[in-house]
């Protein structure tokens, strides 16, 4: 395996209510790998993303881009982890898109010229070039989702982690996002129920259930295994189900 960008060893987290959310999650993601994280509702997928970003006090070993996650390194970890939340209204909090995309690079301490370059570059990458002055509430859902992606792209993270990126998107906006993600060279971790997206974008799939990794393998094989998927509350992706 190539250089590892993400290492998870026996990651555990229990909600304050006592419910076990993560029950010993272990897997690695190599540089440039595109991994789809799938599983039924409540499997712990989104919780795992929050744990990786250091928002939840999880036990176990988490290492992102060479930084072992501790309370004091959470900031370094987040700098290399581009986390995009499910609801772009949470992600886009500045009055103008340009300022929002600039936020990350500014907190990295970059100079104004560099920040400007990165903003233009990131907006260009998601097909929103020239949208600097638009306010988020004037964007369509698809544009918001791509804008949210731009806000982390501008930080040039080593790994992009997306939570349900196609939720609420119409087919055209979804297709557009899919093509965008396929074209990215960076390491990708996509969480979601959109198995077709994962099949098209990711080479590898990790199936989680009840806070554990239930299966891990090439996306084409794992997502074509009807018995495996159905035993974990999932279904074959529509594109494969049609063929069967």
């Amino acid at each position, binding site marked *: 395996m190539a250089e590892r960008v993400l290492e998870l060893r026996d990651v555990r987290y229990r909600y304050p209510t006592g419910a076990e959310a993560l029950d010993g999650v272990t897997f690695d993601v190599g540089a440039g790998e595109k991994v789809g994280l799938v599983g039924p509702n409540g499997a712990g997928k989104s919780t795992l993303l*929050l744990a990786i*970003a250091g*928002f939840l006090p999880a036990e176990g070993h988490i290492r992102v881009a060479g930084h072992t996650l501790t309370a004091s390194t959470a*900031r370094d970890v*987040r*700098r290399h*982890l581009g*986390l995009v*939340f499910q*609801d772009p*209204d*949470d*992600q*886009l*909090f*500045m*009055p*103008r898109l*340009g*300022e929002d995309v*600039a*936020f*990350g690079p*500014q*907190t*990295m301490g970059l100079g104004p010229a560099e920040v400007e370059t990165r903003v233009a570059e990131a907006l260009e990458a998601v097909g929103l070039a020239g949208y600097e*002055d638009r*306010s*988020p*509430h004037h964007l369509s859902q698809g544009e918001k989702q791509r804008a949210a992606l731009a*806000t*982390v792209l501008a*930080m040039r993270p080593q790994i992009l982690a997306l939570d349900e990126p196609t939720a609420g998107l119409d087919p055209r906006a979804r297709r557009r996002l899919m093509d965008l993600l396929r074209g990215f060279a960076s390491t990708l971790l996509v969480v979601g129920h959109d198995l077709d997206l994962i099949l098209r974008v990711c080479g590898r799939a990790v199936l989680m259930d009840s806070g554990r990794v239930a299966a891990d393998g090439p996306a084409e094989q794992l997502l074509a295994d009807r018995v495996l998927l159905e035993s974990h509350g999932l279904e074959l992706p529509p594109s494969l189900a049609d063929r069967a």
Partner: protein
Amino acid sequence: MHHAMLDHFAGRDTPAHRIAPAAKTLAALALILATVLVRRDHLLPFAPVAAALAVYAAVGRVPVSYTLKRLLIVSPFAAAIVLLLPFLEPGHVVWQADLGPWTVHVTDAGLARAAHLMAKFFLCAATTLFLLATTPFHGVLEGLARLRVPRVFVVQLAFLYRYLWVLLDEGMRLRRARLARDAGQGPWRVRFRSRAALVGVLFLRTFDRAERIYWAMAARGFDGRLPAPAVRKMQAKDAVFLAAAAALALAVLLLDRLLYG
């Protein structure tokens, strides 16, 4: 969902829109200050302000109906005070009515006072309205930042503006979901309680959203310090505009002085 936006017409491209936001914000403040400082109870010093605002609105293509509607919406705040004045202010009685044991007087001084205050109110409201109608909200924020308004206030306003719509959307969705199942019958207590619950749910969701927003910010390196808003440089035309506004404000004060000696 769509809401009446504060800066509904701010996206247009007219000479008024092209002036730097900071210049416009400062000009609006100067005009409001001069208007407020006019002593009672003349109306003449307001004339140049009204004329200038009319020209500005025409150049900025702010629709008249939009202006009147917005002014009407905010007018109750002023009306509550202004409508009582003609009856309360002592002076020469111009009209009176007998209401059984009471007699109500309307005085000339009271009328003049009411007209003066009303004019003041509408001019200040119109100034703010035209600023917002020709400047995107982020431009106003930029203007405030430029005027060295403390960053926390500017940022607070930015968040308010950003999430007010999201909150309204959320509230509207909840309300619709409730109405969709409200057959309009049954004990009023049940129906009243559902309304109270709606407010509670909205509060909880706001709380959750605040946490998610914080996470999204922290994920991008937020450490409690907020970046300064970008401020564009002022150009010659902005300086001219500002100078004109300052001259107008001075003229108003001068006129006020002449009338009172």
